[in-house]
């Protein structure tokens, strides 16, 4: 009964494809209805990792279109719309209905359509010439506005959250809007899982804002008798509830920037895995497209291994495959001028039968091996070119030791690697060092400039760090505008960054977030997490009602959510945690968007620019 988000969301989509009619156990509708599926870009992203064209056909979908494509009328079929509830989409639907494109319209909104938009839809269809109102046969809220990539990995696909949340010019209203968007995304996830979790998060910063708003949202919703959470598990869900741990990217900034040397993070960070799909240079030059998800056994078992181990594993698999093929050949290959003997003939065809039966399995294995050989080859090329192994190793050393030898530092900055690699390395240096050594920082900056790196992001992190230091040393420092917002958003969390570094010294290589999640799941008294906010949306709202022992665990299931962008490093770390536990626990990891190191540093650069830092042209006269 573990929470399986991928399965749940797929079920919901299949139900939607069957016009929201109950589905029989074999997974198809009782009566075959042929229909057309219309979706927008966002919903396409939801659909494409979960359902293939073959499955669409199975559920009677004959054609599938993007909503903004020019579509021709198909008269006698119902159309299933799966779109975000937006003004543009509503207008488009009204236009389709008035042109009588399809027989009937089954509208499904990815989240919940707000009342004003529903009224727009009604008045729009009413005012159009034909009887388009009658064509709208169903309107549904699906609460599916998130992208599930693995059984336990999801993304809200909300772009640039980190920038928006940390934007120095952002007012309260903007911040509230973003928090609201995140909350509604999380609400969809919880509704799909049909669980009301216990919410924990560090105090201060966006995590607390999201936690408070989500708590309120759940409370409001639970007030209505027929809500999304009563029909499902009922008592079961309240008996064993999961814990929802909310974090903000600033809680552990380094993970977003660091290089990693494990297979899955490498494929994502270096080759740009997107929506479980990877485009790489094929062996013969052309672009090849691979799918990497839970249907690929090699990916599932070896995704968390370091790259050299993966290479060895590919070799092993290949040898095993060759052996099996030889075996089959030996058994089926005509054994020379054998006598035409009845029994022998029987035996031969038996073998042939076996061979044919094992063929699909063998070809499948071969395909997987070829795929990963291809990926690994391309990856190896990049690693050699940019000496990513040394980046990963040295960054890790820095984080563990809290510093690095200066000569080594500068050698890396002058060595191989892209500009971004160097910038990322320099930022990790900043984060890892406990105190800022002015001289050293300046020489780093000079080295970066020598390699023509845009140092805006570097300066941004430096600024934040120095702000944080000054905040920590003297809380009564002059409160300029910047300090004000910095305190509002960072008051707690950046100090957690430095705290996290110290903690890293003691534990080997485990992320701070992972360790915190472990502590939160265990629920034992722990000074690190005692100050964490605890919210139970099911509990009656009384000020001090947060001390109930059942709220502190231990928990078997957790949903961990990173606000402002996460990546496969964190995902892998949490999966390891879940597997390591006895008995095995279950952790779902989610984030506002999945970012590569480069993408995240770009967001830092944007923030730096907004603060008026960097801009290569201007001489850094401040220092």
């Amino acid at each position, binding site marked *: 009964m573990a929470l399986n988000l991928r399965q*749940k969301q797929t*079920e*919901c989509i299949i*139900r*939607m494809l069957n016009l*929201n009619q*109950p589905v029989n156990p074999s997974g198809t509708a009782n009566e*075959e209805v*042929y229909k*057309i599926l219309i979706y927008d870009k966002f919903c*396409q992203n939801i659909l*494409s990792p979960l*359902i*293939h*064209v*073959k499955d669409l*056909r199975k559920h*009677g979908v*004959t*054609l*599938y279109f*993007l909503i903004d494509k020019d579509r*021709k*009328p*198909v*008269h*006698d*079929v119902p159309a299933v719309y799966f779109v975000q509830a937006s003004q543009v989409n509503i207008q488009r639907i009204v236009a389709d209905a008035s042109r*009588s494109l399809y*027989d009937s319209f089954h509208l499904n909104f990815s989240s919940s*359509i707000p009342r004003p938009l*529903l*009224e727009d839809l*009604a008045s729009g269809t*009413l*005012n159009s010439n034909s*009887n388009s*109102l*009658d064509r*709208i*046969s169903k*309107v*549904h*809220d*699906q*609460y599916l506005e998130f992208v599930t990539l693995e059984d336990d990995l999801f993304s809200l696909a909300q772009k640039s959250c980190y920038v928006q949340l940390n934007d120095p010019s952002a007012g309260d209203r903007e911040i509230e809007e973003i928090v609201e968007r995140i909350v509604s995304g999380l609400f969809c996830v919880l*509704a799909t899982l049909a669980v009301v979790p216990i919410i924990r998060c560090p105090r201060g910063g966006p995590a607390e804002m999201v936690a408070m708003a989500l708590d309120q949202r759940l409370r409001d919703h639970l007030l209505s008798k027929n809500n*999304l*959470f009563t*029909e*499902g598990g009922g008592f079961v869900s309240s008996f064993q509830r999961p814990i929802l741990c909310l974090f903000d990217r600033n809680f552990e900034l380094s993970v977003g920037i660091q290089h990693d040397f494990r297979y899955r993070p490498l494929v994502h960070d270096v080759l740009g895995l997107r929506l479980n*799909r990877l485009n790489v240079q094929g062996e013969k030059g052309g672009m090849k497209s691979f799918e990497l998800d839970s249907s690929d056994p090699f990916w599932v078992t070896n995704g968390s291994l370091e790259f050299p181990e993966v290479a060895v594993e590919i070799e092993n698999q290949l040898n095993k495959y060759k052996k099996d093929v030889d075996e089959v050949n030996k058994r089926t290959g005509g054994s020379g001028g054998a006598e035409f003997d*009845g029994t022998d*003939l*029987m035996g031969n*065809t038996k073998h*042939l*039968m076996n061979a*044919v039966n094992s063929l*699909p399995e063998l070809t499948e294995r071969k395909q997987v091996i070829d795929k990963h050989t291809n990926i690994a080859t391309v990856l190896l090329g990049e690693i050699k070119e940019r000496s990513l192994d040394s980046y990963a190793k040295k960054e890790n050393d820095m984080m563990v030791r809290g510093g690095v030898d200066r000569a080594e530092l500068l050698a890396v900055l002058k060595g191989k690697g892209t500009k971004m690699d160097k910038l990322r390395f320099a930022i990790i240096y900043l984060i890892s060092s406990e105190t800022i050594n002015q001289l050293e920082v300046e020489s780093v900056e000079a080295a970066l400039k020598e390699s023509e790196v845009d140092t805006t992001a570097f300066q941004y992190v430096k600024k934040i760090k120095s702000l944080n230091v000054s905040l920590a040393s003297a809380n009564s420092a002059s409160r300029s505008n910047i300090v004000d917002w910095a305190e509002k958003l960072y008051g707690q969390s950046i100090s957690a960054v430095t705290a996290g570094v110290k903690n890293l010294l003691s534990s080997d290589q485990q992320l701070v977030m992972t360790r915190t999640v472990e502590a939160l799941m265990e629920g034992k008294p722990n000074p690190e997490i005692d100050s964490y906010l605890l919210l139970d949306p099911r509990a009656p709202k009384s000020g001090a009602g947060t001390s109930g022992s059942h709220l502190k665990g231990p928990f078997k299931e957790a949903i961990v959510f990173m606000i402002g962008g996460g990546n496969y490093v964190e995902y892998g770390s949490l999966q390891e945690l879940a597997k390591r536990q006895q008995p095995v626990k279950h952790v779902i990891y989610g984030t506002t968007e999945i970012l590569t190191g480069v993408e995240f540093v770009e967001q830092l650069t944007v923030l730096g620019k907004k603060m008026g830092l960097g801009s290569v042209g201007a001489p850094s006269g401040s220092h």
Partner: protein
Amino acid sequence: MPVKTAQSSFRDRTQEFQSIAERLKKSVSSGPGPNGPSSSSKTEEQRSGVALQSEFNRRASKIGFGIHQTSQKLAKLAKLAKRTSVFDDPTMEIQELTAVIKQDITALNSAVVDLQFLSNSRNEGVVSSDTTSHSTTVFKEVLTMRTENLKVHENRRQLFSSTASKETVNPFVRQRPLATRSAANASAAPPPPWANGSSSSSSSKQGDGESQPLLQQNQQQQQQMVPLQDTYMQSRAEALQNVESTIHELSSIFNQLATLVSQQGEIAIRIAREFYFYVL
């Protein structure tokens, strides 16, 4: 109960939408008066149009349903065919069912042809490219389903016929040697008492006694010659059967290969990829 859990995460807001529309309609119809009745008559017209249009759809789904029913009958047939109990011989039932299924399939075939005809006659009018691609996919779907079912049917029949042949042939093969053997035994077994008796009776006549066993041996040899020939025939028959079954197996191998090849089709296509091509 499972249905309930499946429904938990979505909301039907059709009612809300309709009530809004109703409210808006009232406020609108109170304004421009003459628009009301004409629009309602229009609605009726359109409705009949919709009904006509969905004729194709209705028939297609009817065929789909028919195929489903037939496949259920096939499943029943398979169950019957698999039953090998001696006491309850379902041969009659099987034959009846096979006939029924045959009828069903011919009916389905003609229905498909009808449908094709219908859509062709309708397609004479103006049909959008989307419509044609939609109906071709529907056809493809129906046809693949039908071929699959036919294949299943074929398999079942094979299963049935092979068990039948086993039932009819095996007794032939096994009982013959048994019978001949028992016959041989029967002819061989009685002699000993008789031979013994004769030998005991002729124990005094030693010379005769020696010649008599010889004669007996001869007789026995002759008797054995018959089964020997018989076993030879049997082995020939068996070899033939082996060849036959080998051919069967080979054909099934080819069938499997064919499905393997056809499976390469749509398995790996993803929407996003398709979209990629559209963009290009």
